[in-house]
Structure formats: structure tokens, C-alpha cells
């Protein structure tokens, strides 16, 4: 019974981090296309 | 010294303006006060008046009266704060206040003092209601008075700051409670525990919490007076 809670916790945390990371990358790519290359500071 | 007296004069000007508006419109008296009363009564429904706490030989309602009273005041204060800023944004008066050249710290002080004055009247009436409805004893009136003043100052200062933060926006009414209630959580805890001590004793349990309330009020009065100018600047 302990293991159920442990596994749910790990899936929520690392799954949540993964989803958030993917959404950040997507948003970043979409936005980068809208911005002129000379305005894209902080990208390197 | 001149600066300070100007600040206080500006505060007085704004506070008396708000209280004059309330005297002629009576919105807080005729709408916020009945709201508080019905919440007090409905809490009785939710908790059931006959249930008893065996070890304390009190009804549950009596036992939790301090918390219910303060929760009622906190909820009612949201409406009073909404009213306090509704009279400013009606015809761009907040803009007007900025253009009059009043000290922003003074404006903050004035608006919070007006809210505090309205809340004190509200608390006196709702407190009487809570004593009657919930049957709690009045153990240590002096501690209770100090707690009421410190808690009211906390609610008024923090509430005015967060209302200003959301002012000028269409979502102000829904945003203010989300900001005010978690921020005031320590004040609710302090007010409830200090009031518990004032009603059932010993009062020495209540004084540290009254101190916390005082410190909380000072923090928010300071923060509000410093930052109010920023929030009047651009909308």
C-alpha cells in the first residue's frame, strides 16, 4: 500500500515537470518565430 | 515635520470624504452589515446549535464563536473594501485623487482609516450579535478591545493595499479576495486565538497573539504607504 502512494507521487511530480517542460519549449519556439533575430537576446 | 503633518492632513481629508459618502449613501450600513448578520446565523445552521463539547462543558457553537465571528468580519470586510474602491473608480476619481497632488501615503492612510472606522462599527454590532446568538461569555474586555483594534487595523491596511493593487481592472472584484484572504491568514489565526483567550481565559495566552496582530498591521501600513504611489501612477 505504501508503494501505490510513492508511485503516484513520482508520476505526478516528474510527469508534471515533463509536461511543463514540453509546453515551455513549444511556447518558446512559437514565440521565437514571431521575433526578429536581432531582438532575440538571451537565447544563447 | 511639515511633511508629516501634510501626510496626516491628506489622510484626514480622504478619510472624512469616504465617511461622508458612506453617511449619505449608507451602503455599508444597509448592505454589508445585513450580510454579516446572515453569515453569523447561517454558521449556526452549519454547526448545529445543540451539539456540545464534552470536556469544556460548552456548546460547539460557543467554543468556535471567536473563529466564526472573525471569519464573518473578514468576509464582510471584502464587501466594505469593494465599496471603498467602487466610489473611486466610478468616474475616474482615483485618477482625480492622483491629480490633486495629495500625498499617496496620505491617501492610503485615509482610505484604510475610513475602512477601519466602518469595520469597527460593523464589529461592534456583529460582536453583540455573536454574543447573543452563540452565547459566549465576555471574559476579559480590555484584551478583547486591543485585539479588535489591532485586527481591524490589519484587515484595513492589507485590504486597502490589495484593493489598490487590483484597482482599475475589470477583474478587481474576483481578484481581491484571492489576494486578501491568504495574506490575512495569520491575522485570522491571531485574532481568533487572542479572542478565545479573551473570552474563556487565561488572557496571558492572548497577549502574544495580539502582539502578532499589531506587528502585522504595522507591516501592512508601512508597505501600503510606501507603495501606494506606485499603484496610482499608471493604469
Amino acid at each position: 500500500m505504501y508503494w501505490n502512494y510513492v508511485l503516484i507521487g513520482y508520476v505526478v511530480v516528474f510527469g508534471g515537470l515533463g509536461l511543463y517542460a514540453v509546453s515551455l519549449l513549444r511556447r518558446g519556439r512559437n514565440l521565437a518565430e514571431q521575433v526578429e533575430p536581432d531582438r532575440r537576446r538571451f537565447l544563447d | 515635520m511639515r511633511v508629516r503633518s501634510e501626510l496626516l492632513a491628506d489622510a484626514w481629508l480622504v478619510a472624512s470624504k469616504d465617511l461622508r459618502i458612506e453617511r449619505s449613501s449608507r451602503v455599508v450600513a444597509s448592505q454589508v452589515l445585513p450580510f454579516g448578520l446572515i453569515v453569523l446565523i447561517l454558521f449556526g445552521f452549519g454547526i448545529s446549535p445543540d451539539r456540545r463539547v464534552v470536556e469544556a462543558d460548552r456548546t460547539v457553537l460557543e467554543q468556535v464563536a471567536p473563529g466564526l465571528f472573525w471569519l464573518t468580519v473578514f468576509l464582510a470586510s471584502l464587501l466594505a473594501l469593494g465599496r471603498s474602491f467602487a466610489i473611486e473608480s466610478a468616474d475616474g476619481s482615483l485618477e482625480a485623487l492622483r491629480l490633486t497632488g495629495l500625498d499617496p501615503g496620505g491617501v492610503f492612510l485615509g482610505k484604510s482609516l475610513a475602512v477601519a472606522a466602518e469595520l469597527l462599527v460593523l464589529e461592534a454590532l456583529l460582536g453583540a450579535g455573536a454574543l447573543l446568538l452563540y452565547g459566549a461569555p465576555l471574559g476579559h474586555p480590555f484584551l478583547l478591545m486591543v485585539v479588535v483594534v489591532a485586527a481591524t487595523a490589519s484587515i484595513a491596511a492589507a485590504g486597502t493595499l490589495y484593493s489598490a493593487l487590483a484597482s482599475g481592472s475589470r477583474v478587481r472584484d474576483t481578484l481581491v479576495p484571492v489576494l486578501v484572504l491568504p495574506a490575512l491568514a495569520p491575522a485570522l489565526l491571531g485574532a481568533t486565538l487572542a479572542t478565545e483567550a479573551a473570552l474563556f481565559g487565561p488572557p496571558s495566552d492572548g497577549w502574544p497573539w495580539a502582539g502578532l496582530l499589531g506587528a502585522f498591521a504595522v507591516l501592512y501600513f508601512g508597505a501600503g504607504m510606501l507603495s501606494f504611489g506606485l499603484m496610482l501612477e499608471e493604469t
Partner: protein
Amino acid sequence: MSPPTSTGPAATPTGSKLTRVLGSLSLAFLAIFLLFGLMLSPPEVSQREAVRLFYIHVPSAVIALYLAFGLTAVGSVVYLRKRSTFWDLLAWSAAEIGVLFCAFTLVTGMLWGRPTWGVFWKWDPRLTSTAISFVLFIGYLAVRQLDLTPEARSSRAAVLGIIGFLNTIVVRFSVSWWQSLHQGTTLNPVDTQMDGLHLLSFFLGFATLALVFSWLLVHRFRVAWLAHQAGEAGLDRALAERRAEATGRTV
């Protein structure tokens, strides 16, 4: 799952050397941490297998409440003094990730509580104060979306970023004080004795989440920066069009 590190085939990736290093380190630490946290670490005496939740619960709480919201407060102070867009956007980014880590703290705390205490929620000072700060910083994120000018949004958010952090400390203090009066000592994860593999797994969990946090922070900041730039570019274009209209020329 973990933050992907490859830049992929997209035309305009937002990765860089910094994020690739941070991302690879995060993945490596994640793999080692999962090995220790889920397999090599033995169950603990009082928490049993739930100790594995403790390895991510406590780091999430510390990173959210002190690192993330602390960064928001610092960024807000610098923004109000220097009106620097960099610090303003950094404060925003840290707050958003802080709210996410707060949510993880609450979820893992409740999942830890159910087998250990027998209930999902006990009015434990740490859980309770985290829940309150969680709502307060959701309020901060709402302020960032207010229908006001960008300048007003930023300065009001900065005021809230500073006061919200101070308030978080007061909440934490008052709730602990309240609980110390009301209840006897309950089993609290931080009070238990840990040694050897437990301690190692705990530090690995901390390092992993801290690395992931920094990777996310850099990427969230880039999103905020690009959105800011896109907004300004849009404004420039609108101004140019307006000017062209006024002078009767086409762009």
C-alpha cells in the same frame, strides 16, 4: 519523464549551451536519483516506504517557498529600483515555477500523510503554510495578467512579489506557533533520523530538483523575454502603420 535536452528539428529552437548543459545534468541526476530513491534506498523505520516521497517533498517545498519566491522578491526589488525588464521577467518566471513546485509539495505531502499519519491532511505547519502561499502566489500570477498597461502590471506585481514573500514568512511562523500550542508532536518527516543511503538519496533528490528548477527557470525566462519582444515589435508595427496612415502613405 524529464526535460528534453535535444533541440530537435524545429526552425527556431530556444535551447542554448547553458540549457543543454543544465538539461543533460538534470537528466543524469534524475536517472541516478530514481535508482537510489526507488531502488537502492531501504525503507525507513518510522516512515517505511513513504520515505521515498520525502526525498521529493522536502526539496520541492524548499525550492518553491524559499528559492523561487525568494527570487521573485529579489527580482521585484531590483525591478522597482532600476525598472529592469530582465529582473521583472525573472521574478515572474520564478513565481510561476514556484507555484508548480508548491503544487508538488502539497501533492507529495498528502500522499506521504495518508500511509504515515493515516489521513491525507493533518494541520501540519509546513503543509498548511505551503497551501496558503500557494494561493497567494496564484494571485501573483493573476496580477501579471491584469487588463492594465504593461508598466502598471509589472510594478503592481513587483509590490506583491515583495509583500507576498514577507507574508509567506509570517504565515509559516504563525502556523507553526499555533500548532505548537494545539497538538503534541506528530511524526514529522524532518524530525526523523536519517543516515547513509537515506541521506544520500535525499541529497540526490534535492540536487535533481534544483537542476530541473534552473533548467525550467532559464526556459521560462526565455519565453517571457520573447513574449515581451513580440509585444514590443507588435507595438512598433502598429505605430508605424498609424504614422503611415497619418501621412497618407502605405507601409
